[in-house]
């Protein structure tokens, strides 16, 4: 096993002969939410530790709403959509490409239930410098879904006008997130 110096914080391999070398990684699971049969209106990660450099959320999600492409929103520190939020996206649907934007906390569109049984969107959401109080937070989301006839691939961003350290993240939409949606929050040292 690795041994950590309390003085310097550095890791070294075990001095015990025969032990495997275990290198401490910079990518650690903080929390995971698995959506059950009843669905979930909001996904909340609270009490986010401030010991990492960056955050990443990996999502596998669908909505219980009736329409493909339902808008999804992200809020920090339990502050709902307000002045100063902005979003932008570049996305393609297999036929054309669109650049767009607006003034709220939108991050992405999800797959709708009635049109696409058992189809989920994939999202990788990065929040860099989440505890840095010298900057607003810029959310970057690489996402997509394919429902065998419709879908998007896109890169989206959201300006969260908060310089406060991020201790809570909520991901929200008008309907519920469907069963078997999963959201995994990671800290990156």
């Amino acid at each position, binding site marked *: 096993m690795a041994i950590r110096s309390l003085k310097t914080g550095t890791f070294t391999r075990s001095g015990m002969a025969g032990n495997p070398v275990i290198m401490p990684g910079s990518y650690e699971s903080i929390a995971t939410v698995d959506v059950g049969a009843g669905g979930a209106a909001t996904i909340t990660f609270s009490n986010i530790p401030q010991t990492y450099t960056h955050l990443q959320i990996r999502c596998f999600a669908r909505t219980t709403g009736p329409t493909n492409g339902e808008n999804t929103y992200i809020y920090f520190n339990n502050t709902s959509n307000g002045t100063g939020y902005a979003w932008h996206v570049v996305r393609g649907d297999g036929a054309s*490409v669109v650049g767009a934007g607006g*003034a709220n906390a939108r991050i992405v569109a999800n797959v709708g239930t009635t049109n696409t049984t058992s189809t989920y969107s994939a999202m990788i959401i990065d929040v860099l410098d989440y505890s840095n109080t010298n900057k607003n937070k810029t959310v970057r989301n690489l996402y997509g879904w394919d429902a065998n006839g419709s879908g998007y691939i896109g890169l989206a961003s959201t300006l969260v006008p908060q310089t406060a350290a991020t201790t809570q993240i909520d991901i929200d939409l008008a309907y519920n997130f469907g069963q078997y949606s999963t959201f995994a929050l990671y800290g990156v040292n």
Partner: protein
Amino acid sequence: MALQLFKIADVTVASPVTIVTFNNIPSGYTDLILKYSARSTTTTTALQTLFNNDQNAANYNYRSVSGNGASVVNDAQTNWYFSVSNPSNATALTFSSGEIYIPNYTSSNQKSLSVDSVTENNATAVVTQLLVGRWTGTAAITRIDFYQLSGSTDTNSTFTLYGVL
């Protein structure tokens, strides 16, 4: 198993600098990831990315699809504008967010990379960019430099380099 990511080095800009450098990059990883949050001291967004201090722009190429908040630009150039910084006229205290993935960085072949990067702004004008790039160098990458096309990289910009196993 969680992604096997290991921090190699990081840079936080304390006052505006013309160059951010990662030097002596070890060769013991499979791939490199660079996460950055940057702002320029000028209104330009292009952030030049150089490998092994190769300052010949002819050795770099890229293709990109970029949204500007209202429309889309397809672009292909012989140049090293692989990344973007928030311009100085964007919303105050707001920085770009980007990730550069460099697979097989020790290969003796030319290097390819993928980049997803965004600027943000409480207005229409942004850059939302998906890019693939090439560097023709065949030596292992041991150094990466970032230069703003114009001006300097501003205070509180951060760059974090990771090795991937």
